[in-house]
């Protein structure tokens, strides 16, 4: 067990990168980490202001976390949590102590599987394995949403603010979530339009299956059909993964509550798991994932290329 105490100084976002890495490495060396945030944080002017209505000062009110993103591996999440100066003190203590080595492994397992999903989808987009499923009639209008017509009815369109008629051309959110800039345009309805704009004169393998000459008709020339068909395949993989992990009995557990999938062109669906299925990483899996952690930067580079 490692007990760490943070004060206002070492929570500063001005921590050097090397210092953050040192802290992360140290924390990951222990199975359990209890992080103590000393009261001086709340006494500090800026921190007290950031803490706002939270926790120890007003324990009856919920903490308002800043909406700041951390890009990269689960380890980066820990660094963010540590360096954020948000904070309802008690809440953060709970949060950081939750993200122990075991949880890093669990989160890393989820991350790794998401990469696998994306790899699968890339191949699917390229090769168009799902054309036959287009005949299934996957969605039907229902109560203002589009609903899966298959027996399990897993996915529903619920994504507020995602439009049936508008395409999001560009979106930029501030790191703290306080504002966003969104540029929209008419939704691209036909594959002819989409392929002409984004994949003009493409050749396999750098060409989506639906943009290869003659293939648009297989999707009724519909962007929605193509997106739906391709994403459904991966959604099912994701569901199977979640359900499979939920059946596991050992190791560190995380719950995956909800999945969301969306495209700039208007497809959106979710797999609401509430109150949550338990996804577990067994020890062997966790160890394997840990060994993969160091490779993630390489994976990121590959997928980002």
């Amino acid at each position, binding site marked *: 067990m490692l007990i760490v105490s943070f004060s206002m100084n070492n929570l500063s976002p001005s921590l050097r990168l090397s210092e953050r890495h040192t802290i992360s490495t140290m924390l990951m060396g222990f199975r*359990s980490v209890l992080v103590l945030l000393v009261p001086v944080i709340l006494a500090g002017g800026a921190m007290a202001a950031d803490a706002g209505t939270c926790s120890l000062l007003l324990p009856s009110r919920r903490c308002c976390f800043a*909406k700041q993103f951390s*890009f990269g591996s689960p380890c980066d999440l820990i660094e963010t*949590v540590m360096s954020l100066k948000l904070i309802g003190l008690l*809440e953060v203590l709970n949060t950081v102590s939750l993200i122990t080595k075991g949880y890093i492994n*669990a989160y890393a397992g989820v991350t790794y599987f998401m990469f696998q999903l994306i790899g699968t*989808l890339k191949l699917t987009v390229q090769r168009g394995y799902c054309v036959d499923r287009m005949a299934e009639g996957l969605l039907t209008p229902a109560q203002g949403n589009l609903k899966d017509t298959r027996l399990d009815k897993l996915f529903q369109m619920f994504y507020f603010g995602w439009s049936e008629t508008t395409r999001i051309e560009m979106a930029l959110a501030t790191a703290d979530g306080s504002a966003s800039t969104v540029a929209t345009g008419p939704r691209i309805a036909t594959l002819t339009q989409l392929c002409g704009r984004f994949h003009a004169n493409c050749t396999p393998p750098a060409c989506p299956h639906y943009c290869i000459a003659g293939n648009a008709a297989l999707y009724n020339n519909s962007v929605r059909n193509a997106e739906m068909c391709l994403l459904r395949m991966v959604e099912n993989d994701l569901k199977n993964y979640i359900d499979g992990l939920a059946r596991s009995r050992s190791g560190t557990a995380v719950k995956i*509550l909800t*999945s969301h999938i969306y495209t700039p062109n208007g497809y959106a669906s979710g797999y609401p798991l509430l109150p949550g299925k338990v996804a577990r990483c067994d020890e062997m899996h966790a160890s394997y994932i840990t060994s993969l952690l160091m490779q993630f930067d390489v994976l990121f580079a590959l997928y980002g290329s």
Partner: protein
Amino acid sequence: MALLKLTEQEAAWEKQMGYQAFPPGNPRRLPAWSSPYHDHDQNGILVTLTMPLDFAGYFFSAFAIDVIGEHSQLD
């Protein structure tokens, strides 16, 4: 299965996370972890992992999952 209903605030947060997958906000196209937050009336703190997917330079889709840790599994 009942339709998942989001409050206005939750919907805004969902959109915010969605926007984080667009190239201007995520030029390196890395997975994005949200900071911890409360949502879904869960007795715990969630984080959301968002994964952008580009194909041949085109932003095709984004996947996101909401994850919560379990206290009972810590020891």
